[in-house]
């Protein structure tokens, strides 16, 4: 019984941490949502929302589990097991969704360089030079790349437009947007998918122990 209670306490804490982590992803401090929304692949945020609910549900159910183990009543333990199993299924869905979404980031859409993010082009500013685009049709004679690629002062004016046009590396962003977005997406994916997976593994073994305890009751 002590083991069950201890495991439940640990799982409650882990569930609460999952809840907090999923809120962090959903709040989207890196402003990834507009871009992934455009590409239609925003499942990472769906995974995060599911994880918010399952994390909190784990927390509540594990506290109930501690109560059920103390009371040593079969009916309570059975209810606990069934509820935990249902939450387990949902959390599986969240982890798998978050992990699969990561594979879908599209390079093409990142050529539509992003205003908020400090990057230029898909892999590098040279993407604007090498590839045809609406921008090139309109402004290609004067500017090799959009002025979004240039570093700006705090007043949002371009710091050095002449330097940016000829490509002085000190006056522009040279990192490609794909690299930047891929790294941010990886951070979110690690949070939801991998941490969720580790919580799932712990809960799996804890449920096995709880089932053994259940059979010993009554």
């Amino acid at each position, binding site marked *: 019984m002590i083991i069950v209670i201890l495991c439940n306490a640990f799982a409650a804490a882990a569930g609460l941490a999952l809840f907090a982590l999923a809120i962090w992803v959903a709040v989207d401090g890196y402003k990834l949502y507009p871009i992934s929304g455009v590409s239609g692949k925003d499942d990472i945020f769906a995974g995060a929302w599911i994880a918010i609910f399952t994390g909190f549900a784990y927390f509540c159910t594990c506290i109930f589990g501690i109560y059920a183990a103390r009371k040593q009543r079969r009916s309570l333990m059975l209810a606990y097991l069934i509820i935990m199993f249902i939450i387990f299924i949902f959390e599986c869905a969240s982890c798998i969704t978050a992990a699969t979404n*990561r594979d879908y980031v599209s390079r093409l859409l990142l050529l539509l360089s992003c205003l908020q993010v400090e990057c230029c082009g898909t892999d590098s500013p040279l993407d604007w030079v090498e590839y045809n685009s609406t921008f090139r049709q309109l402004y290609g004679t004067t500017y090799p790349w959009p002025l979004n690629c240039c570093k700006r002062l705090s007043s949002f004016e371009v710091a050095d437009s002449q330097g940016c046009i000829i490509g002085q590396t000190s006056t522009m962003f040279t990192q490609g947007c794909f690299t930047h977005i891929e790294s941010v997406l990886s951070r979110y994916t690690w949070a939801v998918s991998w941490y969720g997976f580790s919580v799932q593994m712990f809960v799996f073994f804890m449920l096995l122990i709880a089932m053994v305890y259940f059979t010993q009751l009554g």
Partner: protein
Amino acid sequence: MEVYLVLCFICMLPIPAKSITTVDCKPAINESLAAKITINTVILQQPRCCFDNLTNLPCTSNTCEIWLVPAVDTGLSTFDANKASSAILSLSPYPTAFTGSSPANYFLTKVGLQSDFPCVSPSPGGYFRVGADGACSTTNCNGFLPQGSSPSFKYLLVDSVNKTVLAETKWSDSIALYTLKDPGTLGDGFAGRSGAMVIITTLLSVAAAVLLLFLIVVLALCCCGGKSKGSGSVVGSVMGSFRIPRYDTHHLKDPAPYDNPAYEKERKYTTQDTLPKTKATSAVNPVTQDTIKLQKI
């Protein structure tokens, strides 16, 4: 006749043309800039220290001009053939340089005065952008290079007074310009299923299936089977020696001899579990266990 011969000799003597000095300089692109090559422009390093060692020039550094010749394919040889001409500056105007049935494939554009490019540069980061004027139409404008071509470049020292070429650098290596690619070829970036995703999916699916299986087994065992598997034998209170191995319980509907398990297992004492579950025997009082009080049913 001798006078005629001497005159002829004098006529036949080749008038030494002023030859163009070739300096040991080669134009190169400015590697430190990101936009050094685009589809129709190139950024070159400035022509510093190229023409400063020359002597006997008819112009000074304030009046000598530096010009640039971008040339493509046959333009190199065409220019080299024509460079001694006094009208070289306007021989191939930019608008027609690369068009027509047999284009000249080169044009000339002014870079600046020789004094603008001293050997030791006062400020770093000098560059010259070929194609800065865009699609222009004057004779010697700095217009776009033909898209996708591989031009070579040469700097010239030109006398501003009589517009002839005094010195030149060597031809640069041909610099391949970009050709515009279709953005569809950027690739969808669908790198296929990553290993992490496969691991997570399989492990979680297996875990969920195993849990479901165990849950069903546990439920089946405990609630539906009725077998007291694992329900530990709670040793009840000892009730007394009931040593009859086999006896009939007459009051039961289907009288079958009841085998006393207490006796079978060599236990000398009976327990609550081993007694038949009828009202008669359940009235045994553990305190006065040697007397069995029979009750009317």
